[in-house]
């Protein structure tokens, strides 16, 4: 049923989950990581640090908030549509048009596509949840130290490590989300 113009409700939320929030996460990660990377005393004046710190805080807080919103919308809105069970009467062993409404079962109906679920979705649905834990710790560290972060080299490095790990978790989930949607869209 059309929900927003020609887009169905399911397509709308899949877009919000994957494209809008996913793109925001990447932007926030890129800006935040560059900000932390270059936060070095020999590179910046006092005014430079004061000017840059609020932007760095905004970037890391946005990254954390977006990570939470992405996994919550993905798990509680989009995923139930993906894993819904087809009613009696639909052949679960045949990739028919009727079965296409049930992406998980459609993928599993053929050996050639089963791995998208058995590896791709099984990994994506779990690993994605690591990202908000790490991103929240990063945002807290930046908020806690503020301007002082430039004087805590060990914290700055730890922040970069955790940002990278959060990006890897979200990146793996995002990549498989896009590939699975291409193979069997929730629509």
């Amino acid at each position, binding site marked *: 049923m059309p929900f927003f113009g020609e887009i169905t409700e399911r397509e709308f939320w899949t877009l919000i989950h994957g494209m809008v929030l996913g793109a925001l996460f990447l932007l926030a990660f890129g800006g935040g990581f560059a900000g932390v990377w270059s936060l070095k*005393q020999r590179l910046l004046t006092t005014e430079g640090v004061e000017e840059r710190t609020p932007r760095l805080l905004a970037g890391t807080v946005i990254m954390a908030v977006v990570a939470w919103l992405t*996994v919550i919308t993905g*798990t*509680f809105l989009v*995923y*139930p549509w993906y*894993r*819904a069970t087809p009613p009696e009467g639909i052949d679960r062993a045949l990739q028919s048009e009727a079965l296409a409404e049930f992406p998980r079962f459609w993928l599993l109906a053929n050996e050639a596509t089963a791995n998208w679920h*058995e*590896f791709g979705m*099984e*990994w994506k*649905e*779990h*690993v994605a*949840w*690591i990202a908000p*834990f*790490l991103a*929240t*710790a990063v945002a*807290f*560290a930046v908020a*806690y*130290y503020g301007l*002082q972060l430039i*004087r*805590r*080299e*060990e*914290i700055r490095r*730890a922040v970069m*490590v*955790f940002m990278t*790990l959060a990006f890897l*978790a979200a990146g793996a989930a995002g990549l498989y989300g896009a590939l699975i949607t291409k193979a069997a869209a929730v629509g």
Partner: protein
Amino acid sequence: MSNGVETKPNGPVAAAFLAAGIGSFVLGLMVILAEMAINLGGETTTRTILDFSKNYGLGSGVGPLSGKVAIATIAFVVSWVIAHLALRGKEVNFGRYLAAAVILVAIGFLLTFPPFFLLFEPSG
């Protein structure tokens, strides 16, 4: 290392990083427990217990994933509060806490990786 200039103690940040590691580890542990589907009597298994969508109405049709992520999130928040209370106002050996956190996150990554957690799938 504070470069000789007074800064805030690092305990609260160490607590946050450690909690993130614990949340990741617990998530992985829940994935393994769900996969093992240990029988706890009758129809009850570790997998059915984790289906919070059916048991507690957390999401509709989410299945065992609802319990895995709920427990991991609770572990993250609770461990953060406890660690924060224990470490607030303290300057700790941050490298040690970071190492522990990174190891826990790495285990979390491993336990959520299908070729690994499928090893715990009951045979037959």
